């Protein structure tokens, strides 16, 4: 051995020393690595889970970070459609599961006070009262008032229970207050509800026409997408039509501020200019469009003749927009390589909401600005599941699942077959829409109602009138907190779980269905709305009808049902929704990638091969351009009420503030104010901070004034988030005659300074 060492030139001792040195050096390096792995601070969370934002209808994908069973961080999901962008509300989702003041136990009203009860006591009372009312006054004396925030499985189950079990069409919900005009408008034009395009169209548009939408504050990730498009292409023109100079309008290339309530004049005048200047796509019209006066089919000449009265010079005085601006806007809309229109409540919250939706689609149809990347009419939605959960499931009083209508006997029969109930089970009488439903509570036609996941005590217009209805009715309210404006009228208050405390699907504004998986147990005794509905079904003797009892089982039933329609999403299994970042319907098979652009060959599986574009919703496979006359709004300014009050959101808060108002970092936002123009303020001797009285034909309230140039003279704005202000006490309950959606955006009021 010694000889061998001498031959190699490496004595054993030296070799061992060398190896020892190498080992020590490696050990030192490894120790250093280990030390920095330990010392470098970790992220805020140990595990990250794919989910969806709880707030607006953008439906942003979020990543929920968790540690020790708690949500510790929320980030935008960079693999979702929103490419990682969310907003301040979405960021604050982190605090949502731990907000203070959650409702933890069922409560029953006894001697005027809500007292704790067991689930059995509460649900027994609910079932008994529902049975008594139905026995005494028939099934139409009970009602369900749901929400665009329930999971699809929950809205579907409620719809089935009330229509096919209890046998009433009194199924409506808060989407009636925000999306009904769009739903009816789309259905009239295309024969099917829901937008044909996608958010992706913003990425390709050269003209972005935003009307009645404060995208920057209400849908910030979509506004960021608009900004991204502008950064990518400097020629992109953003036009905003809004009576207020909103943050969106401030950032636009052009801001058009019409007199509130007159914007159908603008759309009709733009159509007139397009026809007059030949800025139309005659070939597209010839192939894909039909004209209608609302009753009969008419020809293109009749459409042009109808528009003659809307020449820009004829409407500019009433509209408050110059003829030259109207002509320029028409030019940009029609002649850009691709135009996308985005609208929301400024259009929908109107007595002419359906007409406005019709005409916005009409502008795209006569110019061929549809069915190409960047060219589409797109109604942006306000709630996370108004589209998928309510519009698509048909959980509105006039509707049935997958675009069917109560008024059509054939549609009722189809649904009876699909639900496996005897012919004649579904009532032929359309139910009460939201406004009528709460009116019917006031006069006793509806005597018992279940309200889920919404706060009509604050959100109904002409609030005092309908709060009186809630007071009179036997009201069952499933809520997350015991002190909402609706909870105060509850006879039975049920603690509901929310967001990641339960599992289900949200369907956002671009037909994208996304799964929210359960990550937390709900607090106290809170239950999912689905559990509550299943329990109610059992107690009312309809357990055999409501066979699907888990979110996935309900989804599978609903998925199978959709295959009978052009809303087909049979290919969207829970397994796919867990693995993917949402899918857009139609999606008929598990191998189908989903449909980005509806009615377009190669994308939409229902388009006949070789047709290119096919509006298959109508039997003649044409979309309808309606001749929609401008009708002045019922509320008109007068010497007694010389200001138009309009309402809306601020960026940090959402809806009636039951959630965002409990998040520590958001609760400091004060929305108890009315904003009025500096000219109006000066005339009344009002400065910012003064106490003012706002009086309309519906109510009177006092609040603080903010003087601003962002509203035109003769216009005032108030956010609708504050329960203390409860601005809806002064807001009109006039509704669109077609959609029954209230005109929140236009109430004539008087504003005067009062002593503090």
């Amino acid at each position: 051995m010694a000889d061998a060492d001498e031959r190699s030139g490496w004595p054993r001792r030296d070799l061992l020393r060398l190896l020892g040195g190498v080992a020590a050096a490696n050990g030192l390096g490894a120790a250093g690595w280990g030390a920095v792995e330990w010392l470098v601070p970790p992220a805020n969370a140990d595990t990250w889970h794919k989910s969806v934002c709880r707030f607006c209808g953008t439906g942003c994908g979020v990543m929920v970070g968790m540690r020790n069973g708690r949500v510790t961080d929320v980030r935008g999901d960079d693999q979702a459609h929103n490419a990682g962008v969310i907003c301040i509300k979405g960021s604050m989702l982190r605090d949502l599961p731990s907000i203070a003041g959650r409702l933890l136990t069922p409560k029953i009203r006894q001697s005027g006070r809500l007292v704790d009860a067991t689930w059995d006591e509460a649900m027994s009372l609910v079932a008994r009262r529902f049975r008594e009312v139905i026995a005494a006054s028939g099934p139409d004396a009970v009602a369900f008032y749901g929400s665009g925030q329930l999971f699809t499985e929950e809205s579907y189950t409620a719809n089935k229970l009330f229509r096919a079990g209890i046998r009433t069409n009194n199924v409506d919900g808060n989407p009636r207050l925000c999306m009904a005009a769009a739903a009816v408008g789309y259905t009239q034009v295309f024969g099917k509800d829901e937008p044909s395009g996608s958010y992706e169209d913003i990425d390709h548009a050269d003209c972005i026409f935003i009307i009645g939408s404060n995208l920057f504050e209400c849908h910030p990730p979509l506004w960021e997408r608009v900004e991204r498009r502008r950064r990518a292409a400097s020629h992109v023109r953003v036009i905003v039509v809004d009576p207020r100079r909103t943050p969106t309008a401030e950032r636009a290339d052009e801001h058009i501020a019409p007199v509130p309530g007159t914007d159908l004049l603008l759309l009709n005048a733009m159509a007139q200019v397009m026809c007059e200047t030949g800025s139309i796509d005659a070939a597209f019209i010839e192939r894909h469009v039909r004209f209608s006066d609302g009753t009969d089919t008419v020809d293109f000449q009749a459409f042009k003749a109808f528009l003659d009265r809307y020449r820009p010079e004829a409407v500019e005085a009433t509209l408050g927009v110059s003829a030259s601006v109207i002509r320029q806007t028409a030019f940009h809309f029609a002649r850009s390589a691709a135009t996308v229109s985005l609208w929301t409540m400024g259009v929908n919250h109107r007595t002419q909401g359906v007409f406005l939706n019709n005409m916005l689609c009409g502008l795209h149809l006569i110019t061929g600005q549809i069915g190409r990347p960047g060219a589409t009419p797109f109604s942006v939605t306000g709630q996370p599941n108004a589209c998928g959960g309510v519009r698509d499931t048909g959980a509105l009083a006039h509707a049935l699942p997958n675009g069917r209508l109560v008024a059509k006997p054939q549609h009722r029969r189809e649904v009876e077959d699909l639900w496996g109930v005897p012919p004649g089970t579904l009532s032929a009488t359309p139910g009460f829409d939201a406004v009528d439903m709460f009116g019917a509570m006031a006069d006793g036609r509806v005597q018992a109602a279940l309200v889920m996941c919404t706060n009509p005590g604050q959100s109904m217009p002409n609030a005092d009138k309908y709060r009186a209805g809630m007071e009179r009715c036997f009201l069952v309210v499933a809520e997350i907190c015991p002190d909402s404006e609706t909870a105060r009228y509850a006879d039975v208050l049920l603690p509901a779980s929310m967001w990641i405390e339960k599992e289900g699907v949200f369907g956002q504004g671009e037909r994208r269905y996304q799964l929210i998986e359960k990550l937390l147990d709900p607090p106290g005794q809170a239950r999912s709305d689905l559990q509550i509905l299943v329990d109610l079904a059992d107690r009312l003797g309809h357990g055999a009808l409501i066979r699907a009892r888990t979110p996935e089982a309900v989804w599978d039933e609903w998925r199978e049902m959709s295959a009978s329609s052009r809303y087909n999403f049979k290919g969207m299994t829970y397994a796919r929704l867990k693995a993917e970042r949402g899918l857009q319907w139609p999606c008929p098979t598990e191998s189908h990638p989903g449909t980005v652009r509806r009615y377009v060959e190669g994308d939409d599986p229902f388009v006949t091969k070789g047709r290119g574009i096919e509006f298959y919703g109508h039997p003649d496979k044409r979309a309808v351009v309606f001749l929609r006359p401008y009708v002045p709004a019922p509320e008109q300014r007068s010497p007694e009420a010389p200001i138009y009050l309009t309402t809306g959101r601020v960026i940090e808060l959402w809806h009636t503030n039951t959630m965002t108002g409990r998040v520590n970092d958001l609760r400091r936002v004060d929305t108890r104010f009315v904003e009025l123009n500096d000219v109006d303020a000066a005339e009344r001797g009002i400065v910012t901070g003064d106490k003012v009285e706002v009086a309309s034909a519906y109510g009177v309230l006092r609040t603080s004034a903010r003087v601003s140039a962002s509203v035109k003279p003769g216009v005032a704005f108030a956010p609708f988030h504050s329960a203390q202000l409860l601005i809806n006490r002064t807001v009109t309950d006039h509704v669109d005659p077609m959609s029954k959606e209230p005109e929140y955006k236009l109430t004539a009021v008087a504003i005067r300074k009062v002593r503090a």
Partner: protein
Amino acid sequence: MDTFDLVRIAGTLICLTGIVLCWRFARTRVGAVAAPRLKAVALAGFVAAPLGALAVANYHTFEGTHAVDGCARCHVMWPMVNDLKDPASDSLAARHYRQAWISTNECYGCHADYGWRGSLKAKMDGFRHLSRYTTGTYQEPIVFRGHFNNGNCLKCHAGTPPFEQVSSHRLAARVLSESAMSCLNCHGDAHPTRAQRTPGSSAYAHLMEKPR
């Protein structure tokens, strides 16, 4: 000529001096020169020059890693560097680079906190990256493990009128300063998304081209 170049020249001179001294020491017979002088040569050649060279080398290395090219030495960083320099990219990093909002050491400008502790933390994380890179103990797309300090954004943006005018910034001042809410939530990704950086994606080949 900047400090970095001067240090580089100084380091080269120190190394050459050390080599010369060592060579002279090796060539000197014991007793041919006075012992103190021999000791001084030995001390300078074997101790002072290596220590000086080590200090300069460390400075050189640390300063070198401040530069974008320092990050681009590891190929997993190429997507970030390519995107940074892509005039068509809309990422926050690319927009900052394009507008020269951070004029030099663009990566380091956002990824090292203020002060020496910030640099130390960045170096610690850099050493961790290097360890994982050399041992191959990472997966693409790489994911930032730590928690990004919003201070890197706020050190430039806070207090500016465009920043302060946004009501949400004022409202969320606490959570922003504590980095409890990421600036990127509202302002979008700083770099190519994970989906883009995943091998096999349509953007992957382009992003993984060697940066020029």
